[in-house]
């Protein structure tokens, strides 16, 4: 079963995301309320992680910072990273996509668009 790591400093949002994923049929979800704790977990259990859905902007360590760390070591290359953010600025989305992330969902987003990205990431 695919292991999905999600991180968002907004606990409310985290709950929504995990509920959404459960409804799509993913039960193996690790939830983190800060970028730092998520990064610590990724470093430990990277072999088993199938995909990471990260909030792009979190205090101290945002999704961008985590992604940068992951790309500096090839052992994380197999983990696709999806950003979720309230930042819907086209320019910023393009920048992020060009940096090599797997996908980007801007809040408020439909479960379908997330599903699509996950399907691609997990095959």
């Amino acid at each position, binding site marked *: 079963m695919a292991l999905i790591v999600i991180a968002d400093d907004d606990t409310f949002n985290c709950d929504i995301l995990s*509920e959404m994923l459960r409804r799509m049929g993913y039960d193996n979800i690790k939830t983190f309320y800060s970028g730092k704790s998520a990064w610590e977990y990724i470093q430990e259990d990277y072999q088993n992680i199938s995909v990471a859905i990260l909030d792009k902007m979190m205090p*101290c360590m945002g999704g961008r910072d985590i992604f940068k760390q992951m790309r500096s070591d090839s052992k994380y290359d197999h983990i696709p990273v999806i950003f979720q953010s309230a930042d819907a600025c086209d320019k910023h989305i393009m920048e992020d996509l060009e940096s090599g992330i797997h996908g980007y969902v801007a809040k408020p987003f439909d479960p379908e668009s997330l599903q699509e990205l996950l399907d691609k990431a997990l095959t």
Partner: protein
Amino acid sequence: MSIKERIYHSKIKTKLVLLTMLILGITTLLLSSSIMVYDILNFKRMLSNEITLTANITGKRALSSLLFQQPEKAERDLQELEAKSSILKACFFDQDGNFFAEYSTDEALHICPKKAPPLGERFTFQTLTIHQPILSKISTTQQGSIYVLSDLREIYDNLKRYFIVVLIIMCCVIGIGYFLALQLQKIISGPLEDLSETTRIALRKRDYSVRAKHFYNDEIGVLTNTFNQFMKAVQDGRDNLEAKVHERTADLEREKLKAEQANRAKSEFLRNMSHEFRTPLHAMKAYSSFGVDDYDTASREQLGSYFDRIALVTKRLTSLVEALLSVAQLESGKQKFVMKEQDLRKSIDQVVVEQQALINEKDIELKLDIPDKPLMVFYDDGKIVQVLVNILGNAIKFTEPGKKITLAVSGAYIGGKNRKQAYRIEIIDQGIGIPDKELKKIFDKFIQSSRTNTGAGGTGLGLAIAKKMIRGHGGRIWAENNKNGVGAKFTIIIPKKQDKLEKEVKVI
């Protein structure tokens, strides 16, 4: 162009030389001609004296011939006049005035009047005639008369010589005069030429730093000085103008930069606002879709929890809209402050209770260091709560789970001379801190700490509003980084008493 005009338009140098030559010429001419006239007159007198004398001598010599009626002898006597070449003709008349004897150099002039003409001396254009009586030695009675006709050849010869001398003198005078005038006119035209050349250069090159050379303290010297002063004034004026233009340009640049900054800040603000709206909207959308999906299968409690959450984010949205509205309101006008004496601890309690959920969620330790007695202060409850929520909220937002936040209240004073009793509220976090150069700026409208970009969101107005609110109370608020390098400290000082219990303050 006529000669007159040509002279008028000629150079000063030419004019000066011409003027000198003219004066010199006229003077020499007048002088020479007056000397000449005087000399001619003198010569005439001398000639007449000489002829008269000659006539007298000849007359005396011929006295006996006259007395004894011997015309041949008288003619011989007259022949003596040959020595005087200018005498053309001479005649003797007897006592009765009848022709007696004659002498002539030219046959053609061989006509003497039969009767004696009147006595005396007569000048014509070319001749001088003298008719002189011949007196006897003893009785002084007239024995006859002598008539002499002389030409003026000698005078004209003299005149001719004179004319040549005058011509030579004039040529010399004019030559020397021209040379001297040419040299001496430089005293006048030199400074003028220099001045006029300088003005031409200044005009052509637009160079106001050139100065005319000062020669003498005459009118031209004064003109030169005046011109130089004028040029200096123009130059100074221009330099000043340039400096002013530079200054103005710099001012405009600064203003432009400010306007651009304000514009960027506003865009940033709008972007942040859109973020802030998107998150609760996302929650509403998600929970309502969960509810719709599960409508038939979920329990009442489950559906209820969705509705609760929708209600919660609705509240969050509402407060966001209110914040926006209050920003608009703050921007447009004044806020009313109503000061009531109340216990500051109550408001702090209220803030802590409001933030408790967040504190628990992040597993943050909140340490309260508040005196265990009523802290009676005159203040506007709503405004102070708003400020404390903002600052405590920031502290929570930027502090990692498991870390500590301290909220301390202590007695203090505010103001220099008329210092007043006050309370100090300190909120100390262990978060990411604030870059030193931004410590003041973060209280400006639409300015957020650069570290906020890591993702905490916010409107960029909270601290700006907080500052105005505290100022409205006559208090102070500032931020600093903790000495140990971990986290930031916000300090608020609020006076216990207020001068006015109600006032309107322009907040932003």
